[in-house]
């Protein structure tokens, strides 16, 4: 537990020092939402119907940048190897990084909501529920994303490999998160929100558990 807190503190501090990069990633996500709105055109009904899908696509695309960035600092001077040789627990290092990535993606998701409201006229009064869906969705993205980012950080074609590996795996997260967010924006007369959020939660639990088990094998020789 102590190792986890030390690792989390380190990752949050690294994110804070690289906050300019976080602003750039937000700008990338916002630009993606803007471009998607141009693709739909001025049809306000269609814009509203597609808002949730585009929000999560924007977040998914932006996540590959932030996940890859989170391992840049670890690889520059083999700092991660240095911690493993102390020895620090690989599991603690994984969970510290994954929690920090999840926090960053959640903040990014929350920051993109007002952009979605302005561009797609797609608001909701159930803000806490929306925050919960964003939290569960980003948890489902960050757990496998952190693992794959660690794996691809050691390769030359990491910018291409990370989305290639991650996107097929997180299709269930994308589907469930889009559906749950749509229900919050467009209304949920059939009470379907709970099954979709349960799916998000189950995916997150499985991948957080797997990530902790596999991370040591991924980063060790």
């Amino acid at each position, binding site marked *: 537990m*102590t*190792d986890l807190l*030390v690792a989390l503190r*380190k990752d949050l*501090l*690294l994110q804070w*020092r*690289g906050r300019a990069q976080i602003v750039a990633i937000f700008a990338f996500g916002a630009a993606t939402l803007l471009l998607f709105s141009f693709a739909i055109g001025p049809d306000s009904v269609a814009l509203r119907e597609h808002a949730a899908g585009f929000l999560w696509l924007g977040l998914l695309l932006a996540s590959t940048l932030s996940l890859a960035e989170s391992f840049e*600092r670890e690889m*520059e*001077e*083999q*700092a991660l*190897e*240095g*911690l*493993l*040789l*102390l*020895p*620090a627990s690989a599991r603690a290092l994984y969970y510290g990084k994954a929690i920090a990535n999840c926090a960053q993606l959640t903040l990014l998701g929350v920051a993109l909501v007002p952009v979605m409201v302005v561009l797609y006229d797609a608001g909701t009064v159930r803000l806490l529920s929306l925050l919960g869906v964003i939290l569960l969705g980003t948890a489902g993205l960050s757990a496998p994303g952190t693992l794959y980012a660690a794996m691809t950080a050691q390769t030359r074609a990491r910018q291409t490999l990370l989305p290639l590996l991650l996107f097929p795996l997180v299709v269930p997260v994308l589907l469930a998160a889009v559906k749950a967010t749509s229900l919050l924006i467009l209304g949920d007369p059939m009470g379907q929100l709970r099954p979709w959020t349960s799916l998000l939660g189950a995916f997150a639990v499985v991948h957080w558990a797997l990530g902790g088990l596999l991370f040591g094998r991924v980063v060790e*020789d």
Partner: protein
Amino acid sequence: MIAVAAAGLCRRYGRRWALTDVSFEVPEGALVMISGRNGSGKSTLLRVLATAIRADRGTAHVLGHDVRADREAVRERIALLGHRTHLYEPLTALENLALVGRFLGGDGRRTALLAALEEVGLADRADDAVQTFSAGMRQRLALARVLQQEARVVLLDEPYGHLDPPGFLLVDGVLRRLRGQGATVLMATHLIQRGRMLCDRGLVLEAGRLVYAGATAEMPEPAGADGAGFAEGA
């Protein structure tokens, strides 16, 4: 007691063997110099002993613990100064040492960390990010990080690299201090005369094979060395 023992160590990168059948023993408390030309396998040997990479064949033990089967126990007893410094560039010098201190179970107190930085001549840059440091300053900070671990076996890969003449004297002092503390040191270096002066034993590698293991006084020059090319600094 034998501090480090290797038997038939082999390691390859792709098709090329970086280490071939390397066997030796180092008694506890010895200062050992490892020499050899670029690419002779010095760094690979140190990284195998540090458990950073695995040997493809052969065995190695550090203080009786198998580097393959008992990685955690080995890691608790070794410290490695590698070609890469293991530092976080966006963090300050103090934050880097505090991070290591916390993982080692210490409290990361500023006064103790400042004393460690003072020892390597970086106290006045304690709150500066590592990314603003020169290569020599990074090497000094990496040395402080290694000393912080108080390991019984210290593996130094080119510890004089990037350092200025006062830095050379700093490393000399560190080696003498480690000897006084009873630590076992394996140091890869091209500074043959300096190594002979400071170390008791020597290993010479050529193309991944161990060609000499014995006293430094009788140690041969690495193949191709003409003396003048191996500058000794201060």
